């Protein structure tokens, strides 16, 4: 499926490299995403996808390279910077506080404050409002949640993932990065997430989607960037390639560039 790309670059990553001790996880990786575009970031296990995501969202500092948001070079030294630049991320490990309940996790560092400006200045929480909005956000994903007061560590794997997705798409971000968002989701919930991706990209949000599920990639993505052992092996329009070709790029059997 191809959207009318707005042709405005939302995120540009230039020459990023990153190594851990002896493991070179990323080697001179570059790509761009336009506004309203959904780009699949593909690659084998250990290819460096999550590392790239962590570099963009401020968890890791890349050894070298630049990141540009809306054409401006940004200095992303912490996740705070990333969020301030309008980047929201669903991390592969979900990044939840297990002892917090669903609402508390949804609004972590995005808390709604009391309407009274004095109380708000003190940082008084508006628990009611958060519960209300949280419930709406979760319901959008059609997930079966036993209770919104349940602690995260009592949830099933899929329920947790749904919460993480709801959190990322709920903030009016310009760029949403999702690291295997549907891995633990049921069929219906996965479809819901695909639908959601379509909706937000329709609103101009740039989406970077990591997935091992070729079906999903083909259904949702406009373009695919393929990493192979830390280097970018391909950058192709999804409509130009078949599923089998994509798999070949991922496993390194056939190499091509867009």
């Amino acid at each position, binding site marked *: 499926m191809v959207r009318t790309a707005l042709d405005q670059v939302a995120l540009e990553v230039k020459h990023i490299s990153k190594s851990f001790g002896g493991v070179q996880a990323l080697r001179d990786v570059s790509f761009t995403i336009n506004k309203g575009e959904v780009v699949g970031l593909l690659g084998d296990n250990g290819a460096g996808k999550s590392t790239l995501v962590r570099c963009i969202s401020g968890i890791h500092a890349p050894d070298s390279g630049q990141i540009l948001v809306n054409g401006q070079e940004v200095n992303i030294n912490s996740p705070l910077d990333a*969020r301030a630049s309008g980047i929201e991320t669903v991390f592969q*490990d979900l990044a939840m*506080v297990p*002892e917090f309940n669903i609402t508390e*996790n949804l609004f972590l*560092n995005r808390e709604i404050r009391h309407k009274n400006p004095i109380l708000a200045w003190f940082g008084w929480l508006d628990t009611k409002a958060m519960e209300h909005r949280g419930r709406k956000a979760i319901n959008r994903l059609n997930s079966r949640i036993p209770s919104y007061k349940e602690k995260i560590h009592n949830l099933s794997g899929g329920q947790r993932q749904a919460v993480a997705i709801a959190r990322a798409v709920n903030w009016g971000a310009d760029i949403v990065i999702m690291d295997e968002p549907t891995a633990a989701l049921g069929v219906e919930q996965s479809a819901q997430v695909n639908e959601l991706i379509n909706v937000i990209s329709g609103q101009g949000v740039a989406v970077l989607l990591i997935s091992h599920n070729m079906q999903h990639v083909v259904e949702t993505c406009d373009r695919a960037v393929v990493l192979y052992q830390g280097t970018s092996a391909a950058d192709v329009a999804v409509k130009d390639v078949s599923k089998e070709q994509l798999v070949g790029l991922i496993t390194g059997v056939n190499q091509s560039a867009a």
Partner: protein
Amino acid sequence: MLTAHSERFNFKRLALKREAFIYYIFFVVLALFAIVLHDTAFLSVNNFMNIIRQTAPITIMAVGLTFALAVGHIDLSIGAVVALSALVGALLLEQFGIPVAVAGALLVGVCVGLINGLLIERLQVSSLLITLGTMGVITGVARQISNLESVPIINPDFTFYFGAGEVFGIPVLFLWTIVIAGIAYLALNKLVFGRHLLAVGGSPKAALAMGINVVRVRLNALVISSVAAALAGLLYAGRLHGARYTLGEADLLTVIAAVAIGGTSLFGGRASIVGAILGSWLMGMINNGLILSGFSTNEQMIARGVILIIAVTIGVKELKNG
């Protein structure tokens, strides 16, 4: 469907939470002493005021330490801060009056908290090691500036507001406890501040990923812990009409026990202010009850340990059956 089902049981589940533990223990021990010591003055208002007054500094230290523990840091330097802040306060008081003395004493707390925090966060070394180091340094400084002498306080205003005073018949030490506890309760449970504190303690990774300034949150927590200890030092000084380098020395373990029994996790992420207060009152009550019981010192020591263990046992039983 599941939702309705679960909401119905919420009350029961609340009563079974780990945080409820301290209530059981507190009332079990209270009942125990009330029965055994029914012929002494244990159950008198006067005696309870004694307990609350005596434990006021402990309670405030416990409340402060709760913040440090909430982010997953231990603070061993609080005992030493008590001594130093009391001494600084007492020394300044003579020449410069109450405002400067109080400011100076609290500044000791702020400085120690900042030093602890900066060392821990910059070096990424365990808070235990760093605060053990600063504890030694602060104790040494307290000994040095006081020359091991006690520094007397003759200012009646100071000893009123930080010690023996009463307002509308309520001891000021009780008021201090209530006010500090109230602020701490709100900060931890109702404000963004507390939410972030617990998030950092519960999962530093997740907190970081969500853009919380983990270092600053931890720093704040350590400063609060230190400042609370500094305030406790002032209360000691007010009560004792003087300061001395040994103040607070023996309180560390009591405070840690009070906080732990109150349901705060020593590993971060779970904290209870009410628990810390009841925990320190429990410790004070056990002490007081044992003294009134007429046990010898040895027997008191054994009994204190046994009561602690039995109380914990019964508390857990209640939780499991209740």
